[in-house]
């Protein structure tokens, strides 16, 4: 970001009244910083503390130092690794398909010039609908007897008795489909905004030079869309890694859909095993941080640019 180094401050001379600018800035920033400290930093610190202790399930308040025991328990537990696997398959699958679909939708919206306002409104519906409602919606669509999917399959002569949410890979597939439906539009809107800043002259020039539509897409659209694409990818990946609502409502984690957030919730909330549950939450946190670090380090310096802009 070339602009990063130019914090062209407002004129500071000739002001005798009021406090100094830096002091005012510090005052204006501090309520937010204090609040964020209380609601983000403190709980995370406390989670680390909890994760290093063992809590009695029977006697409230009774705890003892456990060192890294909760972590070794978690890391030695096949359920944890299965949750890691499920979370990554879900993230990979949904981010991949929603990027493809989002890109296709963005290109169609960009080209479809007349109904764009209407399209943007329509596309915002899945984005705005609550995730819980999204889950219920797809539950009704994949419901064995009254769902649309089985009746469609039956109509074209395919087996129509699949209990979608009751079987192992199927439940995860439904979860991915629901997520793609909900978030591809968000992707499409971000990418559409990216497409709109590409000057049309470039395409015209390429056309004159005889480039095919595919060549124009690969050589012009994709490279110029890269910044918007990366931002969208990062947002979506980090979002997908913490998925909780969809498996909670669709299957309660049954049939191979227990994700990292869900396994942690079940451990500390449902089963009241605080120490282990906190360790699982911290592990989830670390995994998300590693992924975001990898993204920023290897695929996009532009996130830094965004922060510095």
């Amino acid at each position, binding site marked *: 970001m070339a602009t990063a180094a130019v914090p062209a401050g407002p004129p500071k001379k000739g002001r005798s009244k009021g406090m100094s600018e830096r002091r005012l800035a510090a005052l204006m920033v501090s309520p937010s910083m204090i609040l964020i400290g209380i609601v983000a930093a403190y709980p995370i610190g406390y989670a680390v503390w909890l994760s290093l202790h063992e809590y009695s399930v029977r006697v409230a308040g009774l705890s003892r130092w456990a060192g890294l025991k909760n972590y070794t328990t978690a890391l030695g537990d096949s359920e944890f690794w299965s949750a890691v696997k499920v979370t990554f398959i879900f993230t990979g699958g949904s981010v991949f398909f929603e990027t493809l679909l989002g890109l296709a939708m963005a290109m169609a919206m960009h080209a479809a010039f007349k109904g764009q306002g209407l399209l943007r409104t329509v596309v915002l519906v899945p984005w705005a609908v609550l995730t819980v*409602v999204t889950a219920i919606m797809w539950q009704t669509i994949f419901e064995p007897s009254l769902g649309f999917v089985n009746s469609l399959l039956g109509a074209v002569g395919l087996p129509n008795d699949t209990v979608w949410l009751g079987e192992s890979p199927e439940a995860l597939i439904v979860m991915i489909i629901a997520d793609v439906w909900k978030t591809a539009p968000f992707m499409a809107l971000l990418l559409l*905004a990216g497409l709109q800043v590409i000057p*049309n002259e470039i395409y015209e020039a390429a056309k004159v030079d005889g480039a095919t539509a595919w060549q124009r897409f690969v050589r012009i659209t994709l490279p110029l869309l890269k910044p918007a694409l990366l931002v969208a990818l990062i947002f979506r990946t980090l979002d997908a890694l913490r998925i909780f609502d969809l498996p909670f409502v669709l299957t309660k984690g049954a049939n191979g859909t227990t994700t990292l957030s869900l396994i942690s919730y079940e451990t500390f909330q449902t089963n009241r095993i605080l120490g282990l549950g906190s360790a699982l939450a911290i592990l989830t946190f670390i995994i998300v941080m590693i992924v975001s670090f990898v993204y920023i380090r290897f695929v996009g310096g532009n996130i830094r640019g965004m922060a510095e802009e």
Partner: protein
Amino acid sequence: MGAASIGRADVLNQDEADVATKKQKAPSEGTPWWMWVAVAAIVVFCLFPFYWLINISLRTGPDLSSSSIVPPNPTLDNYTSIFKNGDFTRALLNSAIVSLTVTALSLVVGSFCAYALARLKLRGKVFILGLVLSITTFPAIAIAAPLFKLWTDIGLFNTLPGLIIPYLCFSLPLAIYILVSFFREIPRDLEEAALVDGATNFQAFTKIVLPLAAPGMATTAILTFIFAWNEFLLAVTLTSSPKARTVPAAIAFFTGSTEFEKPLGTISAASVVISIPLVLLVLLFQKRIVAGLTAGAVKG
């Protein structure tokens, strides 16, 4: 910050300017037929699942085991029954209180912070923005576990303030981030004129920047409201009874009007009802929402 050179009128009519750029790029040849197919496909893809939900919500009894594309005997029974359900109306009220409080607090506190970050001299700006941005990527589960214990200990478990406080953890960074990008779009000359005339920085903020930033504030309010209305993980972790449950949490624990009835019809009706405020927001403020979602994302 190239925004300083943008004319005032452009900023005030950002959406119109946006539309204008699109118009220039309109293909001169008419829209080909496959474009209409693509448009129709998008519309069906986005709206069909919602239609199916409505379709199911209009059925009771035996109709709930047929998969016809329209309800055989459409009825509003599910809708009347959920509004007779005290837990559901309570949840609606809880959701409204929580979402509106979170929105108001985030706007007030966040706009101060965003203005300082967008305009004033301050050490550690990049650090603060980086922090704010990284918090939006936090998995909520990391604060849910400790808050569950903490709230139980100090009596905030299963209360509305117990939800409002942690929601700020995510809504405040969101508000700050969007507002910073909006404040930067406002031309500096007006503020500078005021400063020359002897106004303080704070007066310049309240008297000049805030009124100009009204559209940005509206966008931020809508997005924060949607976040709070939709939030689920903290809502189920930090509550245990209808007393403090918000609608998403209430629906997840819904058991229908009678215990033995398949509650899919009522759940669908409740889902439709709680989506209505969101659909209305989208219909009324489509441009604002898109502007907020894409703020910063393409400029990077």
